[in-house]
C-alpha cells in the first residue's frame, strides 16, 4: 500500500477562555473588576502526533473522551489548522467528512431539497447530486417521503436520510466520527454492510469509534490516543488490549 497522507509532528493547542467575553461591555468591566477579567488557559489537545496513512487502509482512532480523536480527525479534514506540524497529502484525494449526520439539513425543507442542499455542502455539483439522488432515496428507504419537510420525519428517518447521503457522496477518503448508532437493527446492519463495501472498494477510511466489535471487524490498524499523545499504533486486537489496560489503570487511579 502506498502512503497517502503524512501527519508530521502535529500539535494542536486550544485556548480555553474562562469568563470569555465576546462583548465590549464585559471587556470594559474587566479592566476594573478582576472577577470579570478574561483568563486564558492553553490546552494541548494534540501533542506531536506523527502518523502515515496508506491508501485503501481503514484506520481506527480509539481513546477516552477528550483524548484528541475528534480534533485529529478535524485537522486531517482541514477544518482546524494545526498549531504546529503539518498534514501532507501525497496524492490528490477527495475528502469526505462524516462527522455528523445530516449536517446542514434544514427542518423546513423537504427531503428532496435537503439531499440537494446537503450534497452541495459537501461540494457536489448539481449534476453529481442528481446522479446520487436515487441511490440516497433507496438507501434511506424514504421513497414516498421526499416531498415532506424533514421536521415531520422521525429521528430515525432523519438519521437514515443523513446516512444515505453520507455513504453516497463517494469520496476517496472518508473521515468518520461515530455516526453508526442510527436507526433500528436492520438499518444498522445495512450501514455496517455498506461500510464494508466501501472498504473493499479501496476507499481510505479513518474512523473514530468506541465500539470494540466495529474496530475489530473493520480496521486494518488502530491508533490509541491518550491526552493528546499517540500511545499505540498497530494491530487492532493489540491496540484494543492496550486501550483496555489504560482504562483499567485509570479506574484504579494509577
Amino acid at each position: 500500500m502506498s502512503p497517502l497522507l503524512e501527519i508530521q509532528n502535529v500539535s494542536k493547542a486550544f485556548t480555553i477562555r474562562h469568563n470569555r467575553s465576546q462583548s465590549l461591555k464585559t471587556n470594559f468591566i474587566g479592566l476594573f473588576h478582576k472577577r470579570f477579567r478574561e483568563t486564558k488557559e492553553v490546552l494541548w489537545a494534540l501533542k506531536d502526533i506523527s502518523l502515515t496513512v496508506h491508501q485503501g487502509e481503514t484506520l481506527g482512532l480509539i481513546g477516552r473522551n477528550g483524548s484528541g480523536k475528534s480534533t485529529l480527525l478535524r485537522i486531517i479534514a482541514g477544518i482546524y489548522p494545526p498549531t504546529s506540524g503539518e498534514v501532507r497529502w501525497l496524492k490528490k484525494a477527495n475528502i469526505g467528512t462524516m462527522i455528523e449526520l445530516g449536517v446542514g439539513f434544514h427542518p423546513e425543507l423537504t427531503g428532496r431539497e435537503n439531499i440537494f442542499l446537503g450534497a452541495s455542502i459537501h461540494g457536489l455539483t448539481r449534476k453529481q447530486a442528481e446522479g446520487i439522488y436515487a441511490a440516497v432515496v433507496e438507501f434511506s428507504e424514504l421513497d414516498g417521503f421526499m416531498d415532506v419537510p424533514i421536521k415531520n420525519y422521525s429521528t430515525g428517518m432523519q438519521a437514515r436520510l443523513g446516512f444515505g447521503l453520507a455513504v453516497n457522496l463517494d469520496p476517496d477518503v472518508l473521515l468518520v466520527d461515530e455516526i453508526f448508532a442510527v436507526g433500528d437493527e436492520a438499518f444498522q446492519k445495512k450501514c455496517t454492510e455498506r461500510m464494508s463495501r466501501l472498504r473493499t472498494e479501496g476507499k481510505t477510511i479513518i474512523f473514530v469509534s468506541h465500539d470494540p466489535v466495529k474496530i475489530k471487524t473493520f480496521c486494518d490498524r488502530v491508533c490509541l490516543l491518550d491526552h493528546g499523545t499517540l500511545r499505540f499504533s498497530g494491530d487492532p486486537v493489540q491496540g484494543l488490549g492496550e486501550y483496555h489496560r489504560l482504562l483499567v489503570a485509570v479506574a484504579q487511579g494509577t
Partner: protein
Amino acid sequence: MIQLFSYRELIKNLVLKDLKLKYRDSTLGFFWSLANPLLLIAVYSFVFTRMLRVDTPDFPYFLLVGLLPWNFFAQSLMMSTGSVIDNGNLIRKVRLPIEVFPIATVLFNLAQFLLALIVLLPATMLLFPTRVSWTFLAFIPILALHVLFTVGLCFIFSTATVFFRDVRHFTEIFLMLLFWLTPIVYDVRALAESLRAVVFMNPVAFFITSYQDIFYRQSLPSPAHFTGLCVISVLSLACGYSVFRAFRLRFAEEV
C-alpha cells in the same frame, strides 16, 4: 477563489433555501417584500412633501430609486453579521470555503432587490411623468460595482462578529445613522457646497446618487464619479477579502 467557483452550486442552494423559507407558507408571500418599501415611501412622501414642504419634484419616485438600493445594502450588511456565526455548526463539521456564507447573504438580498425593482419601478413610473431612458442601461455596471462593494463590507462585518458579538447591535445603530447621512430622502443637489462634501465622505452616497442619476435625473454619473465607484468597490472587496482570509482559519474554533 478557484475553490469558490466549484462551490457555486452551494451558493445557489443557500440563496434558494433562504428565498424558499422566507416565502413558503405565507399566503401573501412576495407581497410582504413590497409592502415594506411602499409603506415607507408613502409615509416619507407625506411627511416631506406635505409637512416639511420639500420641493423635490416627483418625490416618491425619487425616494424609490434611492431606497431600494439602500435596502439591499443595509439588509445585506445586517444579515452578514450572522452569516458566519449562525453557520457555526456547519463550519465545525464540514470543510468548505466559508466565504460562501457572506456571498450567499448578499446574493439573497440582491434577488429581493431586483424583484422589488422590477415590480415597483414600472409601477411608480406610470404614476409620475417619467419615461424610460437609455441611461437605465448604466444600471448594470453600477449594480455590479455596488454588489462588489457590499460583498467586501460583508466580509469584514461577518468576520468581526465572530470575535465580537456586539457588532450586530453596533451595525443596527450604524446603519440607522448612515441612512440619514446618505442622500436618500433628500437631494444632494439641494445641499450647500460644504455639506455636499460631508455627504460624499460616505461611500454609500456615491452609489445612491448614481442610481438617482440614471433613473431619476436620467443622466449618466460623471466620469470622475464613476471612477470613484470603481475605486471604492475594488478597495472594499480587496480589504474585505484579505481580512476574511486572515481570520478564516480561526473561525472553526471561534464560532
